[in-house]
């Protein structure tokens, strides 16, 4: 079973701390891989500006690296910083890793005229084009993200060993939000793209458990023909895409996510102040209803973090911490490891109707219930 850990803090911290929390949760889990997502990034070797996009992935050969360079140059991107991981490739299980990428680029001047929506679309198109290029060349290039202020790392192997192999213990990269997931998707065959967290246009989630409604959801998302709704090497990728669809396509608030993936029952909606609207939303988004057991943790571009359960709540997760610093984990020992001196009275395990939201100010977390009135004028 996957182990999930997420920490968000006002002060940037080392992702290695989170790997130690993963180690604390090691009991009863196969530790077959590591997926890391960092936001609010700081490089100790470089003064990073948050608007600059960071390209993350793995070049498996020198040729792929050259192709990548040519692609970025042709697109008008200037390389500003190439983070050199202190890698010890011999430690890694996989033997075809040439270079782990975390490269900061300067936007082309022509992008200055783009609207934010256009810019987000172009970032995604470039990522998809690079991914396709890698796939067309025998998988010699893997791209996880291309987005401002986001670093992603995915690798096969025991999480702490992967961290050591990439020199994360040297604390040369720090972040205010770190999401970590500790398992390759063993259900569908080893594939780096199948490893959580999943990322699309700034939206990222990771999940444990199995989503048995995967195929109908995937079929529906692919039917939208949105260019980023591809992949699906893991059944959990749909959670990210549903969140993206809810926020970016439907432009609904974060609170709507839970109403989409686990709508209330008819008899509950009959008593809800915005029942008719929510019933309509449930029917319209019916093919996006998930079937857990799942715990979903996510983060958004403004560093908002969230935690939700599926309806059955067979994968409990906890949030704990103190003002300014919060941690979510699939096991309480993970919280203990991430924030040892937290206020335990603030620990909370969400139930099936809850969405836990940690806003960017991180002063306190909010518990949003589906039974609450929905905060949208159109629902009135």
């Amino acid at each position: 079973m996957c182990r999930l850990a997420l920490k968000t803090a006002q002060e940037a911290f080392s992702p290695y701390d989170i790997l130690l929390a993963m180690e604390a949760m090691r009991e009863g889990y196969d530790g077959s891989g590591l997926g890391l997502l960092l936001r609010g990034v700081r490089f100790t070797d470089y003064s990073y500006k948050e608007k600059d996009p960071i390209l993350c992935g793995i070049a498996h050969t020198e040729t792929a690296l050259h192709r990548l360079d040519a692609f970025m140059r042709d697109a008008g991107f200037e390389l500003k910083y190439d983070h050199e991981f202190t890698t010890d490739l011999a430690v890694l299980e996989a033997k075809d890793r040439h270079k782990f990428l975390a490269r900061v680029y300067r936007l082309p001047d022509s992008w200055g005229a783009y609207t934010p929506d256009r810019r987000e679309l172009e970032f995604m198109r470039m990522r998809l084009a690079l991914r396709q290029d890698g796939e067309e060349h025998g998988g010699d290039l893997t791209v996880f993200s291309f987005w401002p202020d986001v670093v992603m790392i995915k690798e096969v192997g025991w999480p702490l060993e992967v961290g050591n192999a990439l020199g994360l213990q040297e604390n040369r990269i720090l972040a205010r939000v770190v999401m970590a997931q500790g398992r390759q998707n063993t259900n569908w065959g080893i594939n780096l793209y199948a490893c959580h967290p999943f990322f699309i246009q700034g939206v990222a989630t990771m999940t444990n458990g199995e989503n048995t409604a995967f195929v109908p959801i995937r079929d529906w998302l692919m039917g939208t023909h949105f260019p980023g709704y591809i992949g699906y090497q893991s059944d959990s990728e749909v959670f990210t895409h549903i969140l993206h669809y809810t926020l970016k396509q439907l432009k609904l608030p974060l609170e709507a996510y839970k109403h989409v993936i686990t709508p209330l029952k008819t008899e509950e909606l009959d008593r809800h102040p915005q029942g008719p609207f929510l019933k309509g939303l449930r029917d319209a988004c019916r093919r996006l209803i998930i079937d857990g057991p799942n715990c979903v943790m996510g983060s958004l571009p403004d560093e908002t973090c969230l935690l939700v359960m599926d309806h059955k709540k067979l994968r409990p997760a906890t949030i704990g911490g103190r003002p300014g610093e919060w941690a979510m984990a699939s096991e309480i020992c993970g919280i203990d490891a991430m924030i040892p001196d937290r206020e335990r009275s603030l620990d909370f395990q969400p139930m099936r109707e809850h969405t836990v939201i940690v806003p960017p100010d991180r002063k306190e977390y909010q518990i949003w219930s589906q039974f609450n009135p929905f905060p949208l004028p159109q629902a009135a």
Partner: protein
Amino acid sequence: MVPIQSVPSSPSSLTPGDLPWIIQHREDRCTLCGRCTAVCPVQAIHLAYRRQRIPNLGIGSGNLGNSYRTFTGIRQRTEPANRCIGCGMCAMVCPNEAICPVPNPGDARVRFHMNQGGDAWKRGGRRNDTSSLLDRIIFTRISMLTDPALDAGRHEFMLNTVLGRILPPEEFLKRHASGEWIPPTREIFPFIIGSMSFGALSPNMWLGLLQGVAYLNEVLKIPVVMATGEGGCPPWILKSPFLKYIILQIASGYFGWDEIIRAIPDMQCDPAAIEIKYGQGAKPGDGGLLMWFKVSKLIARLRGVPEGVDLPSPPVHQTLYSIEESVMKMIQTMSMAWGFRVPVYPKISGSTSAKAVLNNLVRNPYAGGLLIDGVDGGTGAAYNVSMDAMGHPIASNIRECYLDLCAQGKQNEIPLFAAGGIGKNGNVAQNGMALVMLGASGVHIGKYIMQAAAGCLGNERNRCNVCNIGLCPKGITSQNPKLYRRLDPDQVAQRVVDIFLSIRTEMKKIMAPLGRSQSLPIGMSDAIGIDNKDAADRLNIRYIC
């Protein structure tokens, strides 16, 4: 050689061995009570005096000769019209188990003589094909590790489906914000009692079904709905609060629609939906048929026709020249009649052209779904050739339509409903759920309901199948009070409730091991497999062996 004149032989002369069912009668048990001959719906048997010669063979005794015994016995008629239909009512009424029909394992030559007077063979019932592809689909994706199997008995399951047009989410939000019309939907149980008309069914059968449906909804809170078929709906139902459980069908004969339109101002609630019948699986390309035997005074009044005449509906809706225009105008007209508050959807027969109809509906913003009735659908009356040889099996038809919708991203907008052969061998929940996982939002069941709720004697081996001539021995499809009073509506209602409770349990027993409980697993094709490679390829599901 015997002179030819003395052999009673004509081209259609038959012996019991030429008939599909042969009466076995045990004289030693018969009490000559006469119940079997009285109950036989087709007068296939009669009491006859018989004489038996007993030769005296006392050689040498001087007492040679014959003595004769006269006795009364049962004799089977061999005329095609009186052939035994195998209903078995004789066995049901016999106090001594002295009589029963047995299927003829040999060559039932009567098949060649079912066109006496040049009238091609008409019958009711089913296709007479025991094979079922749906029976062969099994559920292979069992949850065990990362997703534990659920507890069918204790867990909470969302089993209902949605009938009616559903907007794309973006469009729904836009219309909701601007207060525009949002198409009506109904949350219903995915097993629907399919269209069987008031006329095809007896009043008692109809009453029993409706009682059962009302109990399921009002007491057990299982939102089962039933469809009327073409024959209209009794006014007392139209004006009752139970109308909300009824799907009213309009078909090419428009029977009963005067009464329905007139009742609109007095309706306490809206009907569940309006079904526009363009075709049915049992007799594709053919209109409805109520034969004169069944057009009683009550039926004549309901349908607005004279008593005792054949009521053949035209194969198409006559007022309009193309199906596109017909579908569009009829759907809009029906929607308007109820103030756009009632889902309206067409029913078509399974066909290679189903996808064309579907694509037309996708572009019609008022279409509330599509019901496709496959070749194994049943009927009260049809030509034998239509039933046996016309149509398209439902599984590949529904799958093709669903995948077509998926490619367009419209699979949530137009719910597909499947009918035709669901539960033909008794596996109703399994068949229905297999179709759901192939992409149907729900299924309509007709024959299964008749068999399970009312004890219909028909089967896929040409048993009974005389629904068309009003002689239903169980009183299910007869308009003769002497026959339909055999059927107690209360008992039918009880059986309807039994059926839906057990379907609900079996649905859970299917969904729980698949780890599904939060929504009906529509299109969950990763969960099913079939042991035939060609069928698996055609249905785009897993081949298992």
